[in-house]
């Protein structure tokens, strides 16, 4: 199974020179090529099942340490896609990172319908904007909620004494 995935990744590396592959076979794709890369995964490698979409917030170290810095936030947010192939049986983790200042990337709704709810959830909790998403609005939190709770700098008010 892994061998199959290895060959797929190798082929992908030939086609997209800019992608990076880690030891755990995690593919990192730049945002610009994301849509064409994903479309290729679906059309040519039968990766028809998008299981998981999520994102992780990585603020830059400077801000984490609390040092005052007037320069713009250099932190990033990683968006993670887990794609399975029902027919071939392999699974692939695809990552892409966007700037924390302006977290925008194309929606995968046109490739997999399953992205619809999950991207809405990511938008809701992390504030990443998926352009071309048909109905991007809050899904778990209240519409009037301010802030994005899963960001690391989110300040939570309330709770028990």
């Amino acid at each position: 199974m892994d061998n199959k995935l290895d060959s797929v990744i190798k082929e992908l590396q030939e086609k997209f020179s800019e992608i990076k592959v880690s030891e755990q076979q995690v593919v990192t794709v730049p945002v610009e090529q994301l849509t064409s890369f994903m479309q290729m995964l679906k059309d040519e490698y039968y990766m028809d099942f998008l299981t998981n979409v999520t994102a992780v917030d990585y603020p830059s170290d400077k801000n984490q340490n609390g040092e005052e810095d007037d320069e713009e936030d250099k932190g990033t947010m990683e968006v993670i896609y887990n794609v399975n192939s029902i027919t071939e049986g392999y699974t692939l983790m695809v990552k892409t990172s966007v700037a924390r200042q302006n977290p925008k990337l194309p929606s995968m709704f046109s490739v997999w319908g399953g992205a619809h709810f999950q991207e809405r959830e990511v938008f809701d909790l992390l504030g990443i904007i998926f352009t071309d998403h048909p109905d991007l609005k809050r899904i778990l939190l209240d519409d009037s909620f301010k802030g994005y709770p899963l960001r690391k700098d989110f300040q939570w008010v309330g709770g028990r004494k």
Partner: protein
Amino acid sequence: MLRTETYTVNFGPQHPATHGVFRVMLNLDGERIVKAEPVCGYLHRGVEKLAENRTYQQVIPYTDRLDYLAAGLQNQGYVETIEKLMEIEVPDRAEYLRIITAELSRIASHVLFVGVYALDIGAFTGFLLCFRERERILDLMEELTGSRMTYSYARIGGVAADAPEGWLDRVEKVVNDLPYYFDIYDDLISGNEIFQARTKYVGYLSAESAVDYSLSGPTLRGSGIDYDLRKAKPYSIYDRFNFEVPLGENGDCFDRYFCRILEMRQSVYILQQAIEQIRETDGPIMAKVPKVLKPPKGEAYHEIESSKGILGYYVVSDGSNKPYRVHVRRPSFVNLGFLDEMCRGGLVADLVAILGSIDIVLGEVDC
């Protein structure tokens, strides 16, 4: 001039058929559904955020509260992810105990589904009869873990406690009794012509759109797609058991319902094998795990087949004793994504049948 108007009905959040606090904004034309927009979040507790302030072990009780009807599966999914992250080998006996709890949880969840679905369709008796059988499973779990629903049984590297004396015999007895009760459900619910009229050819879900919308579990298999992670990518020790993956043909509510009944029978089969094999397996129930868990920097994504569908945990570690990020891919939540298309053109009564056949748990949807 004669004209008709559509009107909006708030179906929920306090509605008996939404299985909790879930709301569907219905646009109705008479009784026909024009649009059904699911609105969730009434039970959002921020488990993912809470997990960031807990140590790795302390997250386990919170996973119980996601799918509280099948907590054993939730625990298993989480601890296996951490074990994947830390590369821990779990002892065999612990694996068997996990499988037994997981499959018992699956049956408990499916039995409840059958009962609740009967209730949704209008048959009250099926509901309470199913509870009677579920109770026996809960009693077993209480004996093993001390809790009836939120087990917190799996631990990173093993399980919390070994089976008490005679427990396996009692499990075997219950497991051998179960098929008799499934026959009763078949007589009372599945075989009933009114029930079939209500569910057959209702809420059609084509195989293509099921895959496209990432639906999983019996909802996907009801449309005839053979995708059960226990078979497709055997995790834990599922490769040691013989079982089949039941599939539906038409992709309607009845197929989704009946898949679950058949799945319970397969679970019974797995359990019988597991009990036979665990009797020959002695040994520790815990791997050698440090008291303070500090997984190496990195990330892991692991999927298991829960009773509702594919349950995935994504955990990022930054090397400290608390997870940097925990994300749960909840099957109930993703399965809801196709509700609107399935309901369109149906009647209000069909919405209840369709929503019931997806088998959502609000604790899991809202996380």
